[in-house]
């Protein structure tokens, strides 16, 4: 069974793809095409997304319809800003490949790399 994390991702993706308010019933029907999920499971996770501020709901007859509070692009942009914000790196929740270099170091290392490239392109005898 996949964790709630994956289900949250699937629900958000569906809501963004639809582009219009969705009912939980329609989410359940679509998700059940690929795996068995109870209505209660889906509504629990949908409500949790609403608590996180990712979804809002409006009344529609006896039930609710859900929409995303921000667009997919804005969501990405917000997350990427978080990743790239160097000061946020402390938590270790993500592991980013590179960091920051000061300008002097950067220049020195570029020169060292260039030297190394020149060295290895010489024929072996001359090294």
């Amino acid at each position, binding site marked *: 069974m996949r964790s709630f994390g994956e289900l949250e991702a699937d629900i958000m993706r569906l809501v963004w793809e639809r582009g219009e308010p969705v009912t939980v019933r329609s989410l359940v029907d679509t998700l059940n095409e690929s795996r068995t999920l109870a209505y209660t499971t889906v509504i629990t996770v949908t409500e949790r997304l609403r608590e996180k501020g990712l979804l809002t709901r409006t009344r529609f007859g006896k039930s609710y319809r859900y929409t995303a509070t921000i667009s997919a692009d804005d969501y990405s942009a917000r997350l990427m800003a978080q990743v790239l914000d160097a000061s946020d790196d402390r938590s270790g929740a993500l592991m980013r*490949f590179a960091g920051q270099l000061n300008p002097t170091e950067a220049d020195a290392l570029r020169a060292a790399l260039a030297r190394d490239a020149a060295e290895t392109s010489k024929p072996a005898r001359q090294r």
Partner: protein
Amino acid sequence: MILATVLVAYASFLGWVVDIFLTRSAWVTRSPRAALHLWHASVVGFLLGVAGSLVVVEHDVLEHSLMWLLHADKGLLHLAYSGSNQVDELWNVSILLLAATTTLFICVAAKKISTAGRERSAHRVMATMQPSQESPNLNGVSLVDHAAAAVYCVPGRRGENRILVTSGAYSLLTPDQLSAVIEHERTHLRHRHHGAIMFADIVHTLLGWSGVLRHYPQQVRRLSEMVADDCAAKRWGDRAVATALLKMCTVSTPEQGHNLVAMTGADPAERIRRLLADSRSPNVGPFPRLVSVAAATLALFPLAAILTPAARIAGSVHAEQAASEFAKAESQNAPVKPPTRFDQIEILPCAACASTWPLTT
């Protein structure tokens, strides 16, 4: 009392001396994986040492203080307090302390894990949103449309790991460099470095105020990056990794850069220089075995120390039998070898600790 002192001294040695040794030694950059093993073993040894000393102190402190205060006989004291309810609270002060620290550890761990989990699930949502990639380069990787170059991994449960590459990084790096970076991130996921970093952060939250093991979080981050660099370089070459790293680093003002290194412990400049120098020791010969033995010793010494007094009286039941035989033979006036020195130790049953404990003076 000696045992408790030994354990506290051992923990202090690990917490201050070994901490500095592993931080400042040059060999750690040649064998970062071995260094990581030794770090984790030292921390485990430290925690076992502290916990062990608390468990041992429980028995000592009360009995000794009452002996001094009341000039009471040790054996009688032990019999008197082993089952008494009134002194349960005093008796268990160190155990309470141990329980409180363990509970605090669990609470801090739960909070950090749930915070990290929330942050990661947000990134997984974003990753799953992206259309799946056709390019063989990006198998199992999500491409995110963003101008700035970044590559990072999002750890999760089995099958939930994600590696994210921005479009900025995709266009900045050559195919080999990109593959090297992705291999670097895959190594982090394979070795579960985020788990080690989380453990180090929890330990630091609990113990940081005392200055003990103060370099642990920073060094785990630093060494994990080196291990991942090594795995990527083994497959794609030192230069690919070094160039990718240089291209992807953002150049800051000198003040900014210094603060960041101090916080994250993973200095890109050091990593690049290390890749260019290519001074890593190959993982052959007796070195890996030595490291395993050293790590096991560091971690398990406190347990061995705690069990030593009990081991000394192992077989004491035979000494008792020999003593009674001796008494019997003496009464019959037959020449018999005197029992061994174990008969100098008085063995008393202890209801509180449910074992026999030698009460040596």
